[in-house]
């Protein structure tokens, strides 16, 4: 074959000329060789693309595993461990109790630290805001960190689109599941400590919604003590108990009129917990020696509603026999309202 460039006769099977190294198949050389051998140059800096690439490089990657030689039972064990179900179970269990464990196990230390710090921060915020109306926000924040960590542990580079979509759907489920589980745990811890949560309608006075209190039975109560009292009969099944201030104890002549309590003809020194209470008027009555005067000020029975039913009347009567007073209310959480146990 004659070289088209320098004319040197070459062997027929030679691909390149011995002298000038040109391709001997002139047709392919002419067809394949581009007219301009200067490479194209970039017209823009593509800064954001490069930043993204740099970030991905910093994350690194896990070297792809290659299939191992067949051994008895080995494929079944390894294939099960590689399944999404198994990885999900491990990630969920580890991610719930220690959000960053799976990241550390996979060698992603920076990510693990980030999730760990976020979880600790959310947990500390939850503990601090426990007893305030904001504790639920911190609880859902903690659930967000937990679910995010679980989902991050499940993802693997190069996964097919179907798996990625399934993981996205799983993330919604995990978020709500983590939130509900955290809430159950918090309520269980509160119940185990013997605390009670002040209901949401307590927005006034010394007791506010969300506060964690402990009810301690006492032999005697003083005016001004915060106590928990049971409703009588009709309301018991609906509300359980209520919390308010002791207005008076012992034998006194009591009158309640126009949102004022009168003890022995004088305005009582202690008033109910709700400063804006608009209670119904009570006909003057005399308390027994062992009775405690506690008015359910949150129960806004308007005088315009008309006379209450007899069972309602009995259930909300303010002079309580001792067996209806559960005990003295001691605030335990939040910390800045904490009271010493008697």
């Amino acid at each position, binding site marked *: 074959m004659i070289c088209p460039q320098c004319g040197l006769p070459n062997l027929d099977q030679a691909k390149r000329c011995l002298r000038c190294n*040109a391709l001997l198949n002139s047709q392919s050389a002419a067809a394949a060789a581009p007219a301009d051998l200067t*490479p194209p140059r970039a017209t823009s800096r*593509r800064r954001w693309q490069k930043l993204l690439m740099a970030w991905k490089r910093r994350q690194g990657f896990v070297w792809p595993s290659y299939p191992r030689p067949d051994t008895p039972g080995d494929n079944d064990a390894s294939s099960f461990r590689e399944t999404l179900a198994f990885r999900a179970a491990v990630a969920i269990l580890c991610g719930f109790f220690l959000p960053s464990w799976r990241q550390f196990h996979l060698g992603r230390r920076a990510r693990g630290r980030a999730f760990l710090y976020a979880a600790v921060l959310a947990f500390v915020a939850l503990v601090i805001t426990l007893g305030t109306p904001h504790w639920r926000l911190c609880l859902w924040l903690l659930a967000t960190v937990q679910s995010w960590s679980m989902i991050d542990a499940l993802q693997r580079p190069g996964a097919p689109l179907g798996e990625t979509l399934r993981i996205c759907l799983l993330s919604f489920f995990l978020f709500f599941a983590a939130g509900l589980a955290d809430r159950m745990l918090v309520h269980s811890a509160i119940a185990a400590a013997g605390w009670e949560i002040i209901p949401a309608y307590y927005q006034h006075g010394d007791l506010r919604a969300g506060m964690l209190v402990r009810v301690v039975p006492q032999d005697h109560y003083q005016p001004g003590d915060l106590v928990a009292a049971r409703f009588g009969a009709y309301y018991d099944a609906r509300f359980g108990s209520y919390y308010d201030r002791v207005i008076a104890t012992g034998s006194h002549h009591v009158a309640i009129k126009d949102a004022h309590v009168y003890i022995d003809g004088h305005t009582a020194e202690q008033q109910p917990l709700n400063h804006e209470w608009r209670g119904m008027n009570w006909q003057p009555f005399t308390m027994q020696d062992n009775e405690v005067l506690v008015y359910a000020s949150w129960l806004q029975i308007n005088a315009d509603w008309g006379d209450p039913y007899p069972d309602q009347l009995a259930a909300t009567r303010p002079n309580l026999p001792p067996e209806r007073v559960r005990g003295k209310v001691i605030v335990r959480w939040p910390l800045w309202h904490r009271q010493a146990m008697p």
Partner: protein
Amino acid sequence: MTHRFNALEINDAPTAAKPAAPASRGEQIKDAQFFLDAANTHFYRLEWEPALKSYSQAASIDAGSAQAWLGQIFCLVNLQEYREAELWYGKAIDIVGEGADLLAVRAILAARCADFERACGFSDSSLESAGTSALPFIARGEIFLYARRNAEYCFEQACSCQPQDWRPRVLIAESCLFNGKDAAVMLGMKFVQSMLATQGQQAELHLALGRLCLALGRNAEAHQALEEASVLAPDMTSVAQYLAQSRARRGFFARLFGAKK
């Protein structure tokens, strides 16, 4: 000798450029090899644009030169023009075919684009036909740096292919510097320093050492290495910018906030 052929009518390939005829006796023939040598010199001195130009001239003279195509693609990778490098790689394999070195540089390109799956594939293919070339092992080592595996072993394999050649060490240093992590930079420094012990007159090695020291915050050592490089190769233009960097880090606040060690 070449003047005897000037009068002959040879039907040359229309796209292949002719090397320029020497103007006078004794002047070097500027053929493909001449431009390749010049390009390699620029390349290892980190002068990417002149290297790219010289490689392009070599490829224009000899379209079948795999080294010229390889050099062009590698220069584009080092200039971070990844899309263009990928395009040019496609053209290169059409003309010169897929060789181990081309596959290796393609693997490096994929790794720097954070496309690690492709990088692993190209690296595997290049190692299958590695031969005596060090570049496939260097590419593998760079990918191992991102996978947090034993990159040192790969780099040692690369150096053992050409034990007396300082060029693989410069490429290893470049890979480690691009990775940016302290562990990788210190690994690169280890390979460069071991070669400097026997080839202390190579300016490119001093330049590589200077850059590695700058990356680690060892300003004084960096300055010394860069000064040595500039003395050994006064025509090296790339050393000036690194010298300027080392001078800029001499201030109090630069030392306070910039120095790592």
